[in-house]
């Protein structure tokens, strides 16, 4: 295991990866690679997902029934696994998003008043 998992520069706040995945997938079905790409681009390269870490998260969400997966063909016609939000996932996303904005606003307020 030579390589240790050193946090990359744009490390995520722990626990936010699931939410980001759910949010990303709310736009429609995507495969793992494009999810990683999307998060990076949408955050203007601030958030760099450690790409490998994406997969345990995706599978965990699938086991919990928040995502559904399906094998299909990618743009360049390769076999790829596409993920999609389930109804359960959509609800989870709403809750997490609401919680996130509350917390983020609170944190911002604290940071500004200090």
């Amino acid at each position, binding site marked *: *295991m030579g*390589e240790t*998992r050193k946090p990359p520069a744009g490390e995520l706040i722990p626990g936010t990866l699931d939410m980001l995945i759910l949010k990303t997938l709310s736009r429609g079905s995507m*495969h*793992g*690679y494009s999810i*990683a790409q999307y998060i990076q681009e949408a955050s203007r390269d601030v958030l760099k997902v*450690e*790409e*490998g*870490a994406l*997969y*345990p998260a*995706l*599978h*965990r969400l*699938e*086991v*919990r*029934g*928040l995502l559904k997966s399906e*094998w299909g063909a*990618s743009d*360049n016609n*390769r*076999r*790829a*696994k596409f993920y999609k939000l389930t109804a*359960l996932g959509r609800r989870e996303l709403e809750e997490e998003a609401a919680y996130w904005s509350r917390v983020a606003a609170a944190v911002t307020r604290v940071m500004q008043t200090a």
Partner: protein
Amino acid sequence: MIQQLLAIWHRLTALVRRRRLERDLDDEVAFHLAMREADYRRAGFSDAGARDEARRRFGNVTYLKEQTRDMWIFPSFESLRQDVRYALRTLRKSPGFTLVAVFALAVGIGGNTAIFSLMDAVRLQALPYQNPDRLMVLWGNVVRTKVERRGASYPDYLDWKAQATTFDGMAAYDNFSAILALGDEPERITVEMVSPQYFPLLGVNAAHGRTFLEEEDGAANTNAFLLGDALWKRRFGGDPQVVGRAVRLGARSFTIVGVMPPGFKGLTDTAEGWMPFVTAAGGPSAVGERGSRGFQVLGRLKRGVAPAQAQADLDAVSRRLEAAYPDTNSKRAVEVSPLDAETFGPLRPALRTLMAAVIFVLLIACANVANLLIARSEARQREIALRTALGAGWPRLLRQLVTEGCVLTGLGAIVGVLLAQAAMRALVATSPVTFPSFVSPEVNLRVMLFTIAVSLAGGVLLGLAPAAHARIARLAEALKDSSRGSDGRRATRMRSALVVAEVSLAVVLLVGAGLMIRTVRNLMALHPGFDPSSVLSLRISIPRGAPPAAQSTAPPAAAPQTPPPLVASARVVLDRVKAIPGVASASLVSDVPLSGGGAAIFYTAEGQPPVDAQNVPRAYVHRVTPDFFATMRVPVKAGRSFNENEIAPDSTAVVVSERVVTRFWPGQDPIGKRIKQGGLTNKSPWLSIVGVVGEMKYRGLPDNPTPDPDLYFPFVDRAPQVSLVVRTSSPPASLAPSVRAAVRGVDSTITIFDVTPLDELVGQQTAQSRFTMWLMGIFAACALMLAVVGIYGVMSYLVTQRTREIGIRLALGAGGPDILRLVVGNGARMIGAGIAIGVAAAFALQRLVSTLLFGVTAADASSLFAVALLAAIALAACYLPALRATRVSPLNALRYE
């Protein structure tokens, strides 16, 4: 909650699809890397550079794959696999132990599976009818000194049906035997006479043709008949064109309207044909009598109605009928009894007891194997110590032990289920109890689940025993007890406790088996009032001569006006049978004892004060020829049997059983006293008592269902169906062929049936007790064997443990007998404790089996015998290791140190 369930589901399916998931994950990661690589190449990287960069960005591929995989599986499942593999490996290493343990468990688990599958086979849903929980049998009851089941009359039935509001429908049913005249071979078959509603109520339809139409029942010119599947195949070659054909039953002609599906034998479970109720009875005029009762009624409850509500409903109806028809319906009630209780009722308590017994056997087997496991765990101390040192926590070790136990019980279950399957078939085939024909115990899903549950429970027990033992041992070590002897004693306490438990369970089973054996012996020893040995009984049906069409086999209520004469006289048949060599004596009789025939009448004794309705004298009537009492060896207490002159239709001679005399003329000479049928005002003639005979258990064992006496009338040679009882000087069954030949010799059209030694009829009465006795006996024997093996094992172990101590004792001058006393005394303490607990438990438990017992309680000599037997065998099991101990060479024992 949903999420958790989903997760469990996903993970369970993942277990099955393991391989595919693995491949998919590989593909998914490969795809990602390829995409990234392509990006880098487009950005100007070299091929190798692009690949490296893509990998760097992805992270540790193997590690992440592993992480992902973990999302899918229960981590514990993975280690469970390891545990199971490990357990199997260790078991393979000691095949002797494994064999013994698996066999003991297989006996226990197999027994449980077999008995449970029998219980499962007699559950409510086993009835082969639609919604059987709503099917009820309605009994017309009479309240005499106690409530007696009697039956319904047709007018009563019509009123119940019209007035009850809790039923979807009702159907009358009854059965009788009829002679099917077909080709040269007339055959006696059981026919059910049923209301047309009967079939829709049961939810059974004809396989060919149709069942009865409502308007068909009792209509003047339609004699519809339904064939049973077996009869159809046997006598009609399974030809579907048979529908519409005419068939003769007795002297009447019927038209076949349909064939019932395979396996359907009606509620009597023996029917091979069906007739509409009123038609069979002989038309509407034959069933008009409200006081003439004798059949049962099937009812289907409306959806959601409880049997108690239906009972209340019918109670109200009977009260109305009682008010409207006081003559016939006073003290009459209806009893609503669920069909499954009627069908399986007698089997269930026996099976419940057997279930308990077989669970005991399993517990003993578990205790035994637990002991073996403890012995092994001691041998494995080093291994366990090593594993602990390597960081295996206490829970992890416990899990390992429980897994091992479950692997053992699992193997035991596999062998046990195979044993059970073989045993079940044998059980049902040889059972003295006749199971309903549709009962076929099998290892189905429910039985399987039960077996799995039992095995898991057993496995946990097995795992916990060595664990508890190890704990005690560790405790002993921690406390650093000074003397080594007491240290050992602590460690063996667990094993001794198991032996005590085994002994006490075995005692309970042995006492139980003893009680059943005593019950059966009591039943067998019960004098039925006659001597059933060497008596052959048979029934014959003599057809009538040339018809004007009238029936020869009379269904209960049929009364043809002018029947043509029978083709032969029963007296002639009797004379021929008497002439057979080997026949000591023979008699004609209207109904064979214990065969379920016989009719009750009310009678009046001359010069007696009137009695209230509930105590009107009632008796069962049998018509016999003079030799009957001699043939049955019924003692004549006063007077004599009939003489030949009295065997005539207008005879006024009567023989009564003792109870008549004790009731009306105690201490007086009964000869010449008079009785008559019916009430005082009845026009029937007065009959003079010519003889008094002993009471017979004519209608059932261990006792007649009601204490009514028997009246014997002279035989009248005009009934087409009569029975013979034949006392033989050789085994009765061996004479059956010559008796048949003699009867046929009189007239070849006479049908002979129910040729049965009387012994067998007596045997059938005790069948349920014998069934329970045999199985209890087998289980008790298994228990005894297992317990003895267990005791032997532990004693041998203790002797080995104490070799050094014994050696020192011997060296210090103790003699062989001292050592013997020491070791056997040790065992005797365990056995004594086990017996004490077992006897206490047996007394506590006997209440639960009291319905199965007859004339015996746990405080019986047989219990003492059971305990003595166990004690003797158990002590013998101690004696052998003790003997070995006396042969210990002090020198070797000390050198061993």
